């Protein structure tokens, strides 16, 4: 059992998928007049053609499978007695862009190199000429074989198009008898980022940060790949008390198989679903790293999670299935760190009003993460149509954002002690606060429209079982609707990129709750490249529309000394108490960074 998905929800998902697909197909279909018939080698190619034809206005399109006798010719080099020799030849051909496969029996010293099996004489002759020009003798072996073909039938929109039947030319098809050649293609990538910070916090603080990442990619064969990535972080906070924290994390590390129409990935991986930049409502499956709040860019705020992922390619569509055996809660900063979400110095806890009661609980109390072993997973269907992508998703996962509540035991003791904090704390044996990550169910739709000089993206997600805090401070479940409208454009068709996002969040629950029931915000990103991208200016912003919540971050990146980059960034926050801007408003931050990738 991969994912605990109820049959009913699955049925709803599939029915909705069918309805939307049908509606979209109908929208792009037009008048028809001419019958046509075309034959394709793969279902994906046939489907791709169907998509094009539908977009051009063809109607009544169908795809039929049919066994057909096809004449093929195999081009091969050999026999070769030694595997080493065969592999040497294969490598040389690969250097010239000719992909081959070795087959035969090594033990009886009968190996051949298959340059490919061809149907088109043109391709065969060109490939033969090409291999022979490299100095190898190539033999041709014709044969007939029953092959499954996909026939696309329908009516074209335009008049005067005659009935056609054709088999599209193909590149060499794979042979069936293959001994995989162990050519090892290994690539290494390393990066280092170092930052010196200065904060305007009450006490002068100098949060320094170092991140080192390394990644190895090993292509075992054309179908198999191993990726091993690791990342080390070091935080040193120089302030009243010096704080040090070091972490070594496994980054993306997986084994990947690429087949004819599917891709299977097993291991630690980062999977980001959705279309929108930065804050996608459907980006719920990747593990978040908010040890530095939200100041880092998206790739740095995501961590790999052990998972099994199947991507199934269906022409212009893709079905993505992800299973995470044990979701991991986000990484947050410890209480004594600069970007902590629970600050004993200031008595703040993210999401809570700064009342004297809460401040004392935060200052004197404790926090525990309520860890729950949770299977997570999701199904996502995406499709590319003419100048548009769309998709829908169904996910069951833990809430990836941290949510804090006062522990039920503490609530009870506060009631019994008539809000006497000292008495309540003394009577509470467990933690004062919990960081909770309840399991949630999400269904979502996503769209991206290419408008030529701009791109419009829209995402909406219905989230069930999301946490909110009741008026008695108890944890409640709510239903939430998160959406984002995102437009990316280039003013004057030049080098400035602007991304504007309007986001909304609406909450409903059976019982009254303390959280804001509706929030709206305007996010923005601006990027401008000077001097042929030797200097880059970036601006990120967030403006709360339903409450005071501001974040502004200008950044200059000097890229003149590749592979080195020098970065100067400023992060400023302001806002109401319960907002992110309000929570960090005493922690404006100036950073001087240096990064190098090699």
């Amino acid at each position: 059992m991969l994912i605990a998905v109820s049959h009913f929800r699955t049925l709803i998902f599939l029915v909705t998928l069918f309805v939307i697909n049908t509606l979209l197909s109908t929208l792009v279909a037009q008048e028809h007049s001419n019958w046509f018939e075309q034959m394709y080698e793969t279902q994906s190619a046939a489907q791709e053609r169907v998509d094009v034809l539908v977009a051009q206005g063809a109607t009544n399109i169908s795809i039929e499978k049919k066994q057909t006798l096809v004449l093929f010719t195999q081009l091969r080099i050999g026999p070769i007695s030694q595997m080493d020799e065969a592999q040497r030849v294969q490598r040389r051909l690969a250097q010239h862009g000719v992909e081959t496969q070795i087959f035969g029996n090594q033990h009886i010293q009968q190996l051949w190199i298959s340059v490919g099996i061809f149907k088109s004489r043109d391709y065969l002759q060109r490939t033969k000429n090409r291999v022979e020009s490299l100095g190898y003798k190539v033999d041709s072996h014709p044969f007939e074989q029953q092959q499954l073909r996909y026939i696309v039938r329908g009516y074209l929109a335009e008049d005067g198009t005659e009935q056609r039947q054709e088999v599209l030319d193909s590149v060499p098809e794979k042979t069936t008898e293959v001994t995989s050649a162990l050519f090892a293609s290994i690539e290494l990538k390393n990066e280092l980022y170092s930052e010196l910070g200065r904060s305007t916090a009450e006490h002068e603080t100098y949060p320094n940060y170092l991140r080192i990442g390394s990644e190895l990619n090993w292509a075992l064969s054309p179908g198999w790949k191993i990726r091993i990535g690791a990342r080390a972080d070091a935080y040193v906070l120089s302030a009243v008390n010096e704080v040090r924290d070091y972490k070594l994390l496994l980054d993306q590390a997986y084994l990947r198989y690429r087949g004819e129409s599917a891709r299977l990935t097993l291991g630690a991986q980062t999977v980001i679903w959705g279309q929108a930049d930065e804050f996608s409502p459907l980006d719920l499956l990747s593990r978040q790293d908010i040890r530095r709040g939200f100041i880092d860019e998206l790739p740095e705020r995501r961590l790999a999670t052990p998972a099994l992922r199947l991507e199934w390619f269906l022409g212009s569509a893709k079905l993505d299935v992800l299973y995470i055996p044990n979701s991991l809660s986000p990484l947050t900063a410890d209480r004594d760190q600069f970007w902590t979400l629970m600050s004993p110095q200031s008595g703040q806890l993210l999401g809570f009003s700064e009342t004297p009661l809460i401040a004392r609980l935060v200052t004197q109390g404790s926090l525990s993460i309520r860890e729950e072993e949770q299977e997570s997973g999701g199904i996502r269907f995406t499709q590319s149509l003419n100048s548009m992508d769309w998709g829908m998703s169904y996910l069951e996962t833990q809430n990836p954002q941290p949510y804090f509540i006062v522990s039920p035991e503490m609530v009870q003791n506060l009631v019994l002690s008539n809000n006497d904090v000292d008495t309540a704390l003394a009577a509470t044996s467990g933690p004062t606060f919990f960081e909770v990550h309840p399991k949630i169910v999400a269904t979502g739709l996503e769209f991206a429209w290419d408008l030529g000089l701009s791109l419009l993206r829209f995402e909406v997600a219905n989230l069930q079982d999301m946490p909110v805090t009741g008026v008695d401070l108890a944890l409640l479940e709510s239903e939430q609707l998160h959406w984002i409208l995102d437009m990316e454009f280039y003013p004057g068709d030049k080098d400035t990129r602007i991304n504007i996002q309007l986001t909304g969040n609406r909450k409903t629950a059976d019982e009254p709750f303390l959280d804001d029931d509706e929030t709206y915000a305007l996010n923005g990103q601006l990027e401008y490249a000077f001097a042929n991208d030797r200097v880059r200016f970036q601006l990120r912003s967030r403006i709360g529309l339903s409450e005071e919540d501001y974040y502004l971050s200008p950044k200059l990146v000097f890229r003149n000394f590749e592979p080195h980059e020098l970065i100067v960034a400023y992060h400023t926050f302001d806002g109401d108490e319960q907002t992110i801007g309000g929570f960090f408003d005493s922690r404006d931050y100036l950073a001087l960074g240096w990064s190098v990738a090699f």
Partner: protein
Amino acid sequence: MRFSILLAVIAPILTLFVQPSWATEDGDLLAQRVYERPDGIDFVSVGEMHLISPGTKPRIRRMTTYRLDEGAGGIRSLIRFSSPADMKGVGLLTHDVSGVNKEQLVFLPDLDRARRIASSRKGGRFVGSDIFFEDLRDRPPNLDKHAIVKAMPIGSCDCIVLESIPLRAQSTVYSKRLSWIDPDTLLAMKIEFYRSGDEDPIKSFKVLSKKKIEGYWTVTHSVMTDLISQHSTEIRLESIDYDMGLSRDRFSRRSLEEL
């Protein structure tokens, strides 16, 4: 007509422009011949772009380019960067039909996902170079009117200077192009790019070396210079293989996502 600028490296995609009925027949014919110059059904190339700012160390972008001419104006291309390290794996997939960009997708390896991007950009600089996105496009000759201006030698080439002016100003960021055509190879050995309101060209493209590879004339070394900032981009071809029989699958979203 197609001018190999990045060609080989990024793609023999740079094109010229042709041919309304009121243009001189010679200009039309020449533009058409350049556009139809044999350059293979497809190719795979490896090359580098050297971004040169006077007085500073060049920045180098290394890339592999796949290109497929589907006929009837259909061009697909996939550019994959292999260096510098922070760009390694970044891919750009484009699909043009008759000079109109139908689709453009970018693959960002840090996020391990491909994303659709605005397809009709013309004036933005390609990865900080002096090549605009428009310069990478296939531009059919019927989008411009052409006239032969004069004959002018460049080195050993007795080139013909062809003036190309867009029929619709909105279709391009340039108001005019002057191209020095080598009548033997039908390569544009030099192009000057003009912007509306400017008497002098804003950019120039020059072929520094060419070679006949697998029967096709190929630009192996060229330079695009921003005549205002004097920043230049050298395009150096390392290898190219024509007519490999590339399939459309090579130009799919899936292929873009596979490193």
